[in-house]
């Protein structure tokens, strides 16, 4: 792949993020107003200063009006976009490229999702009219295929595998308990995770990310302008995005222990950012822990652990908040919640806080380079986003 990248040419100069959770008394419009106005304030700008907007949402509105109407944006371009669960990250990528091109000077990337109005469990999507031959499997079922496949391939017995998945859930809830914007702000005992009601395959309810409402926003400009708005901007080192050809769902040689889309997007991002050894050079990461086995596999696909070793690194505490390479320090999708269109921006929000030393109780010591990873789809058939950001 031939992305040239925009390393250090674009900066984030302000961010906002609502608390994620069951906002029974707040609409998608309310959440957008909260997140966007917080971001304006964070960058010290007025709405008039923003030249264009990118709004990511999978199902909480259509068109740019979803954003311009509640905020009364005065006749500016607003692009609404969707890329499954990686939607929020796509908003960042498109907004960043717009300022890098010189077409605009100051833009915003915004994400929102209002999931709790549907009355249903889990995610619901509206597919286009179809022929009725899709498998009908839910997201937890699709991702549950990873766990036994990984255990089989690397000789991990299923009891140990259960412990690994539980450790991931435990860690992310531990982190979320230290985050006032997380959906679930409580540590969850290991026994409770182990015995949670089964949803799909090995996965219980405590292996699944939170279904929630929320919104987040970022103010983005070219690097040379960054200090006009903020004394402590963060800089984009890489933005990579891959949509796979859906091989795993159709080819017998796919074994459900990796996401080729993630491997490729990570490789591309590391080239853009000049990262040679992600295990050593990436200080911290927010990754797409939609289900616990996803995080396990991602540690290998992102190059944080050698193949077949992520389960040991996980158990050894490498990815804990005080470990060598903290992963999901804000609680991740698991504990912070997963309002689809907002999640990619929420990941970036944690990078914003950590790199600027504003993460409070969960502040990581002196982080230099952060990574966000956002995934949409299912094993064998997905899209993947990787960003690298730093000071």
């Amino acid at each position, binding site marked *: 792949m031939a992305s040239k990248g925009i390393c250090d040419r674009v900066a984030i100069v302000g961010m906002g993020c609502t608390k994620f959770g069951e906002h029974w008394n707040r609409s998608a419009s309310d959440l957008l107003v909260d997140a966007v106005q917080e971001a304006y304030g964070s960058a010290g700008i007025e709405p008039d200063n923003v030249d264009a907007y990118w709004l990511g949402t999978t199902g909480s509105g259509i068109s740019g009006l979803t954003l311009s109407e509640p905020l009364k944006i005065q006749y500016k371009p607003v692009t609404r976009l969707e890329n499954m669960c990686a939607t929020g990250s796509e908003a960042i990528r498109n907004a960043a490229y717009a300022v890098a091109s010189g077409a605009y000077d100051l833009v915003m990337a915004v994400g929102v999702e209002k999931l709790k109005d*549907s*009355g*249903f*469990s*889990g995610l*619901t999507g509206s*597919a286009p*009219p*179809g*022929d*009725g*031959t899709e*498998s*009908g*499997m*839910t997201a*937890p*079922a*699709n991702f*549950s*295929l990873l766990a*036994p*496949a990984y255990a089989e391939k690397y000789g991990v017995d299923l009891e140990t595998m259960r412990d690994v998945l539980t450790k991931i859930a435990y860690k992310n809830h531990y982190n979320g308990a230290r985050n006032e914007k997380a959906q679930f702000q409580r540590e969850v005992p290991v026994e409770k995770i182990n015995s949670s009601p*089964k*949803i*799909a*395959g090995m996965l219980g309810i405590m292996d699944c990310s939170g279904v929630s409402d929320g919104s987040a926003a970022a103010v983005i400009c070219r690097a040379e302008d960054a200090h006009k708005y903020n004394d402590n901007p963060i800089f984009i080192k890489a933005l990579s995005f891959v949509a796979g*050809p*859906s*091989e795993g*769902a*159709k*080819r*017998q040689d*796919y074994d*459900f222990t990796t996401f080729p889309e993630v491997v490729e997007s990570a490789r591309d991002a590391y080239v853009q950012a000049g990262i040679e050894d992600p295990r050593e050079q990436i200080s911290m990461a927010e990754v797409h822990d939609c289900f616990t086995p996803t995080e396990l596999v991602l540690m290998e696909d992102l190059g944080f652990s050698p193949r077949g070793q992520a389960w040991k690194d996980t158990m050894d505490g490498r990815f804990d908040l005080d470990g060598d390479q903290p992963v999901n320090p804000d609680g991740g999708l698991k504990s912070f919640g997963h309002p689809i269109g907002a999640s990619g921006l929420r990941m970036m929000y944690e990078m914003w806080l950590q790199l600027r030393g504003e993460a409070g109780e969960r502040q990581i010591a002196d982080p230099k380079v952060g990574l966000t990873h956002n995934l949409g789809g299912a094993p064998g058939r997905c899209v993947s986003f990787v960003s690298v950001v730093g000071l």
Partner: protein
Amino acid sequence: MSGIVRYGSYVPFNRIQRSAIGGGRGERAAASYDEDSASMAVEASREALRELPEGAEVDTVAFASTSAPYTEKLNAATLQAATNLPKSVTALDLGGSTRSGLSALLAGIDMASAGRTVLVAASDVVVGAPSGPRESGGGDAAAAFVLGGNGTEPIARLSGRASCTEEVLDVWQSPGMPFAKQWEERFGASIFTPLLVDTFARALADAGVAASDLARVVLDGTNARVFRGFMRPAGLDPAQLADGMAGTVGRAGAAHAGLTLASALDGAAAGDRIAVACVADGVDVAVFEVTEAIDDGRPKHSVASWIGSKRDDLAYTTYLKWRDVLPFEPPRRPDPDRPAAPPMQRAERWKFGFLGSRCNRCGNTNLPPQRVCVVCQASDDSTMEPYADSECRISTYTLDRLAYSLQPPVIGAVVDFDKGGRMLCQLTDVDPDKVAIGDELEMTFRRLYTAGGVHNYFWKARPRR
């Protein structure tokens, strides 16, 4: 002379014990939540069509049932599409009486005599009012026959036949009635027994055989009391009677005469004469003579093998839920979408015929068919191939307790075909506790769900039966 060229049968996997319904001996067959009379007709027809003799090219399809999934929309078209028969077939639905199965068989033989080659499939899902005799005594099953005339070698020739029609109120169901009703059986017997004696005698005379020449006699009808006074006047010995499968299947409506005939053919030898009678709104009697071709013409599954392959502990409440008799708490998930007509039309050869595309460049199989090959990216260079009868196995699987289903959990499996190709599909007719990676599977045509009155048919995989 015209006759039966091939035959097939189908008995669904699930049985409910009559003791669980409230009394009685034995068990009855119950179509699964994802089956209906059309999908079961497809299964029986696949058996009958698997190895047609040379020269037999089906040009007519008839579907007979009293429980047709659609009251308007040709159910025989579903049968044609799912069995990959040519679109040039003449197709018709028959119903209105459980005698329509045998009537269709006779009509098919008449058409065969006129030069046609006919697939007749009779299938029924028999639902009776809870606690009533129809619920307990009924069963769900299908039978299919390919009928041919000159130029094809039949396994059984029609040597004689007779019919009788009687306007009488015996079993009836009008639109809006949830269940059929039946008049007092003693009345029906008083009308039908003499008619059966007469019609049976005429059929034997037509065939030029005596009652004692018959190796097997199939007696089927809405009213078992009819046959009590029949055997002696007809000159029949109880040893000649074919097993009516009352204790294993139950009376499978329009399919039952055919199913019992199929069972008789399973055990028949060349030269055997078999009489089949069905008594409902009158009488049809057919007399067949089994030929030397029988040994090459038997289907993969005998009726007995279907009966032996079962899960026999279906709970009564589950059965009532499947038949839409008992309301139940739905899952907290959206109702499935109604499938849309144009996409179904475009995907017909995949959705119904289960054809995949094999890349002419690299040989890879793409399921569903793809314009661009997933392995070599060759574009618009592939050949459609059937996969419904291909060997396949479980690569990996999961139990999905969240997905919408009348029988949770949904078992989602990654299915790999031995001749190439992979698809993610649902398993059916399987105990969730007994699924294992590597299990051998076979494909089965099912009704995934119904939405907006549209039945969504597609294929699932099941453990080999």
